């Protein structure tokens, strides 16, 4: 495939700044008019928190950390995955309805419809997170980290949400089919369950511990745990410092975003 230079560079800077907001507004209006999916998405971390705490709370002992302190950060990360799958489906539906063709025929940057959606989705994620934190605190979840590290935790969560979005954008645009997106969910469940989300990794079979320890979901979970629980608890319960998990998370976020944004934009251009 030959690449011919085109005139995308001719678009004014304002197009790159305001067009994502125009699209984000569209997605938020859509969410407000058809709130069923959003209500499920926003409340699901609370439900999972209640359920998992009920089922595993008595059985699993985390040295140096209460189970609810261990669980809440993982539920927030899990919800990014659930939200992402909805984004994949939503994009596949937009491709089929012809709306993405409409966007592609307009003088707007190819990234705008995708970044716009990620902004709208981030809004929902933050709402879900706020609800989950309220429920968590009711179940005795506490911040033991410093105030600045809690701010870093929020910033890191936003980064994860925006970066992981590209994985799901690539999935939705490459498959162009909501059903195919559904059939890809087991892959994500593999990452969610073969991780440290609900149980410490050393309870898993030895051969899978390496994957479970270093795969992005586990790193993200531990970063949010370390940032909200303080570095002493982190060192004791998770085996590494807060800095280690934070830097590793940022590295995962940036790598995933780089690779999958290229794939997503390539699919977008070739729809």
């Amino acid at each position: 495939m030959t690449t011919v230079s085109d005139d995308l560079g001719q678009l004014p800077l304002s197009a790159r700044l305001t067009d994502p907001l125009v699209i984000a507004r569209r997605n938020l209006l859509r969410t407000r008019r058809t709130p069923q999916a959003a209500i499920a998405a926003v409340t699901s971390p609370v439900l999972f928190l209640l359920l998992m705490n009920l089922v595993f709370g008595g059985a699993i002992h985390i040295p140096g950390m209460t189970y609810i302190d261990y669980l809440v950060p993982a539920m927030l990360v899990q919800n990014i995955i659930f939200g992402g799958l909805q984004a994949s489906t939503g994009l596949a539906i937009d491709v089929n309805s012809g709306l993405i063709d409409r966007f592609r025929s307009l003088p707007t940057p190819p990234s705008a419809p995708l970044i716009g959606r990620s902004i709208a989705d981030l809004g929902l994620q933050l709402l879900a997170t706020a609800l989950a934190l309220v429920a968590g605190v009711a179940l005795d979840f506490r911040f033991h980290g410093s105030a600045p590290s809690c701010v870093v935790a929020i910033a890191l969560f936003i980064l994860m949400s925006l970066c992981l979005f590209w994985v799901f954008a690539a999935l939705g645009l490459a498959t162009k089919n909501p059903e195919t997106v559904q059939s890809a969910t087991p892959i994500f469940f593999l990452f969610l369950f073969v991780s440290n989300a609900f149980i410490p990794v050393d309870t898993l079979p030895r051969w899978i511990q390496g994957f479970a320890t270093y795969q992005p979901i586990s790193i993200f979970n531990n970063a949010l745990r370390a940032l909200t629980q303080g570095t002493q608890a982190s060192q004791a319960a998770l085996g590494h410092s807060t800095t280690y998990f934070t830097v590793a998370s940022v590295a995962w976020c940036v790598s995933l975003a780089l690779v999958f944004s290229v794939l997503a934009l390539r699919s977008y251009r070739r729809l």
Partner: protein
Amino acid sequence: MAGAPIIDIAEVRKSFGETVALDRLSMRVAEGQVATLLGPNGAGKTTLVRILATLLRPDGGRVLVGGVDVVRQPVAIRRMIGLAGQHAAIDETLTGRENLVMVGRLYRLSARQARQAATEVLQRLSLVDAADRPVRTYSGGMRRRLDVGASLVGRAKVLLLDEPSTGLDPAARLELWSLLAQLVAEGATILLTTQQLEEADHLADTVTIIDHGTVVTEGSPAALKEKLGYETIEVTLAEGVHLREAVEVLRPISLDAPASNDSAARITFRASRQTSALPTTVRLLDQAGITVEDVTARRPSLDDVFISLVGHPSQPDSTEEKTPA
């Protein structure tokens, strides 16, 4: 052709794997005209529209809109064109106004300009009453008008319409046609694909019939019919007249064997346009003393043109054209 071509397609090629969708197709459309692409399913109509709309990159050839190359300057093209498809590409959960404002912003209008343009377009589409209702509540015809209207907020000079009247009832179709006629009167150029010959006949300045990715013929609807060079004569005889005798009288001016229908006492045949067939028919029958109830001459329809060139009827109610990915 009046005026300079605003759409200039030369030797364009596009394949999807083994399937050749466009095979060195060339055509031109003059500014301010309605050009109709007519062809059976899989002829390459949708592929051509998608290339013009910068959605698809051609494998070869050159495609210019307003003198600008679609491959090298897609953004410049997108500022000029408006695309409306078989599926109304609008967000059903948004109101008509919200859809138009969104599209206006993406056409690079400021927020204020986009709101103003949306209001103007809603007025001319007679959608003011429904402007602030979700599109979900619109009828099919209202949606399609909004879909075409989305191009108007950006003042698109060239409208690319892929089977715009598919799925519309006759009244909605007439409304759409009158909208398109208005837009052309204001200087827009329209390229539309259709499987409905009636639509081409009604709207088009030029008809381009394509099949297997290449142009079969092109010209004005009248010229294409003229090209066929015949007219169809239908004679209804008075009661008690021998049909067979009349058939023999008419055979010399008929291009092929006249078809007769005994119960209706009717003869139908195709006559060369050079022979002033209608008066000749009347004169011959009169000379033979055969009493005639009615004689009509029918010019060829675009259907006849289509069948004679493509070899089978166009299929107005078949499903969308498939472009293999």
